């Protein structure tokens, strides 16, 4: 039953990805102008050479958009996203950068959502208490500050902290220290030091949103009859709240996970830029500037794919957590 439920969803998603990616390609190919990359060169290459080069890359605006789309789509179906404006394989480039973004996002997501859910649940249990008031204030403050400002504040804070303790504890640039020698433990520590700040930058906003959401969900079930039943059985209040109230209230939050995943991809763009992580977000910005149609389309495809994988994971989790939807 559950496998059937997930399979049905999967088919829906494949169709959605195809549509989203095609639209992204058509939009990018219709608005970006790779020819301009050559026109600004000095000496300016002859038109026939540019045409030949653009034809090679399937970027020539003289061939009809639909023909280019078909060529591109045929490649995508074979698993080939074409070449960048400089002639490199988009696939190779993407593979390298997707790993970077994924590592950043997954830790950010895990830390952000767990923190958010716990903070929200605790705030709801003691509604209008100190914790509730403080977290409410903090989350609105975080939500009001753009990621750019927040990330830069973190960098400044980290520098101050490093000066204070007199050692480079928090590293603010890149994913690893280049040319680092040492065993796996030293490398792991180095990665962790690099990871702290970008993770905080990503997860703060996430935790802020999640805590507000979870607080409201929790408030809905706190007065629920089944929580009262659990206590009437002889469960302590805390046990009843965790086992019965939170367990039920976390279900909608899991579905919400899918939606945050999409916004997170955009969120990482700034974080990657500021902390010098060479991930997909950074690449997306760069490729728009360089009129790199194929990369833009490929990243859109990856983004669509990621959002839908998250949605599928959310559905699977939802079905696993809530027996009522399995019948669907």
């Amino acid at each position, binding site marked *: 039953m559950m496998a059937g439920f997930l399979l049905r*969803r999967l*088919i829906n998603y494949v169709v959605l990805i195809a549509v989203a990616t095609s639209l992204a390609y058509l939009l990018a190919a219709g608005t970006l102008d790779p020819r301009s990359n050559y026109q600004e060169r000095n000496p300016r290459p002859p038109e026939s050479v540019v045409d030949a080069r653009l034809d090679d890359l399937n970027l020539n605006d003289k061939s009809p958009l639909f023909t280019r789309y078909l060529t591109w789509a045929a490649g995508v179906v074979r698993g080939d996203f074409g070449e960048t404006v400089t002639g490199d394989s988009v696939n190779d480039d993407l593979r390298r950068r997707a790993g970077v973004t994924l590592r950043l996002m997954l830790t950010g997501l895990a830390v952000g959502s767990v923190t958010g859910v716990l903070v929200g649940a605790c705030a709801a249990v003691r509604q209008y208490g100190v914790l509730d008031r403080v977290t409410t204030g903090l989350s609105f403050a975080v939500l009001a500050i753009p990621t750019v400002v927040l990330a830069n504040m973190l960098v400044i804070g980290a520098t101050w902290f490093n000066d204070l303790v007199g050692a480079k504890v928090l590293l603010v640039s890149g994913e690893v220290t280049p040319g680092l020698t040492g065993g796996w433990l030293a490398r792991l520590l180095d990665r962790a030091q690099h990871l702290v700040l970008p993770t905080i930058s990503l997860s703060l906003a996430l935790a802020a949103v999640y805590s507000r959401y979870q607080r409201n969900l929790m408030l809905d079930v706190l007065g629920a009859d089944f929580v009262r039943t659990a206590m009437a059985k002889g*469960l302590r209040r805390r046990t009843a709240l965790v086992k019965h109230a939170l367990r039920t209230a976390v279900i909608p939050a899991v579905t919400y996970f899918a939606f945050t995943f999409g916004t997170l991809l955009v969120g990482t763009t700034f974080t990657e830029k500021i902390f010098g992580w060479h991930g997909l977000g950074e690449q997306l910005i760069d490729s728009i500037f360089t009129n790199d149609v194929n990369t833009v389309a490929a990243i859109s495809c990856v983004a669509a794919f990621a959002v839908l994988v998250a949605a599928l994971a959310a559905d699977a989790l939802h079905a696993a957590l809530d027996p*009522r939807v399995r019948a669907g």
Partner: protein
Amino acid sequence: MIEPILRVTDLHVSFGAVPAVRGMSYELAAGEVLGIVGESGSGKSVAALAVMGLLPRGARASGSVRLRGTEILGATDKGLAAYRGKTISMVFQDPLSALTPVYRVGDQIAEAVRVHQRTGRGQAARRAVELLDLVGIPEPGRRALAFPHEYSGGMRQRAMIAMAIANDPDVIICDEPTTALDVTVQAQVLEVLKTARGETGAAIVMITHDLGVVAGFADRMLVMYAGRPVETGSVEDVYYRTRMPYTLGLLGSVPRLDRGGRLVPIEGHPPSPGALPPGCAFQPRCPMAVAACGTAEPVLEPVLEPVLEPVPESVGGPRHLAACFRAAEVRSPVRSENAPGEGRARPEPIVLGVDGCGVSRAVDAGGVGVRPESVVLGVDGCGVSRAVDADGVGVRPVPVVLEVDGLTRHYPVTKGTLLRRRVGTVRAVDGVTFDLREGETLGLVGESGCGKTTTLMEILRLVRPAAGRIAVLGRDTARVTAADRMAIRRDLQVVFQDPMASLDPRMTVHDIVAEPLRAHRMGRPGPRVRELLELVGLDPDHAARYPRELSGGQRQRVGIARALALEPRLVVLDEPVSALDVSIQAGVINLLDDLRSRLGLSYLIVAHDLAVVRHIADRVAVMYSGRIAEIGRADRIYAAPAHPYTEALLSAVPVPDPVVERSRRRILLDGDLPGPMGRPSGCRFRGRCPRFAVLGAGERDRCVAEEPEIRWSGGDQGAACHYASF
């Protein structure tokens, strides 16, 4: 004297400055059943939650609650958790929300076992299955693995009871355990509670607003009003030797299955807990109030009875207490011929409300003067309206206002998101035929899911039904134009169940009542609105108010005024009084009855409460699973039901009279209502039919093979049963 199991002394509960319970005391002996009765807002549920230590945050409780001699009020969460579920357990009102949706039912019961007993998982799971078996869940082993949403309401309440008795408690508090259930399921659940009581020997506190349930189930009872107990004593004392005018009013206003006639409502409406009147809280509604009542609140005091034989004093005692300055003067009119121990027995029982002034009579009998305004409205009302039936031979010569013939409404059930496919059909209404004549009231009764509301909605749509035919005021709905439809709507009006939800909260009463007049361009509505408000017993000055400023009964009167604005000929009422408290309900029922006779209306009333229908309908149609099981004159059907389902349904309705209720034979139906999805062969009721069970094999074949059509007896009574007992 034996120490009571549970002793509550001077319990007070308040939410901020608003008192919800104002001094409640009772004692509960081992194995005893105490019924606590009161209308909504009387504090009965809050008091129970206070005893369990489960009050919501923001509530403050004071007083004393001693469980087996130990004070538990104000105990720590840890201390309370040791008692809850073990010594004292609770069954809640709404079984749909009382179980955690994400855990298996068996696991939830096993959890209750494991909280208090050192047992392994396997053993607790086995115990859960045993308990489910005890409360009558079929196939308990398989059912223990199901989730709450896979249970019907009755089964969930059984599971709740299983959970409550898991640790063999001394006290079970049942907070309206059957209010959310259908009447046949209520009978089953009460039976299960009796089993549970037999099994555990537990004392039960039964909180309910249903005086019938208390009459049949409880040993002693306590009546609450505005947060205080106003009368307590043995069930017989309170029902037959009532000493508090509120109890008296409550008993007079309850619709009863075993007698028709006019109800006597209590004037006014219950006070809001934040704004109690000075003195006795009931004084503004009390027909017996004197000046002293407005100055001080009477306390519960022993009633001086003309004792015939000395009663042995036991725990809690059969002592009869009432909180009324004039308790000695109150005399109960609700008597049963066989009520025991009545000092000055009267030769014949006084039947209340023959002419609409039963209260004054009842009080007159006690030899006291009456406030004139306590005489209830509609003195001219009853008796006249039943002229149609007066001939008694079932000839109904008056014109037909509504004709429904073979009405069918099926809903497709689809599955799948990308490719929708039809997986079944809900046969909500499956061939319903009846007619309604001018000046007549037809009650459409049945349990939830039987299709009664769907039938009503199909009629209101005024379009061609999927199958069958509807004719409203002689016009076939399949052949009317849009303009005709507008015209028919003037003559066909509706009153809905929930008076709050059916009135726009942002419109004043005036605008609500004037809206139909404006929609049909009936000129300036002002004078007509005043007239309508007066007609339904509202102060015309209420026109400027908003619905939220009115009480439930007043809101429903606004709904009725709106329905009457266009002078309709046919009014359709969907559960018009089910959202109202008993004391309010009676007033609305009487109003409907008066309006019908005064304005010559015809009513089609959908209701699940058979006692309410008994009081208002001339004819009754009993629906089961999308079809009419029995139809005919109300007095005949209530007196001698021909269909086994009607018989079981009527037997399941409790009667608020202890002696009558305890001597009644109850036909318990197995199982729940069938899901409307299946395609039934033969008679749909046969799976639960007590008559089918005793038929011979040859006779049964007919029930299996052939769907029964309605057969008519001589006097306008028809039953869809091959073996109807006319």
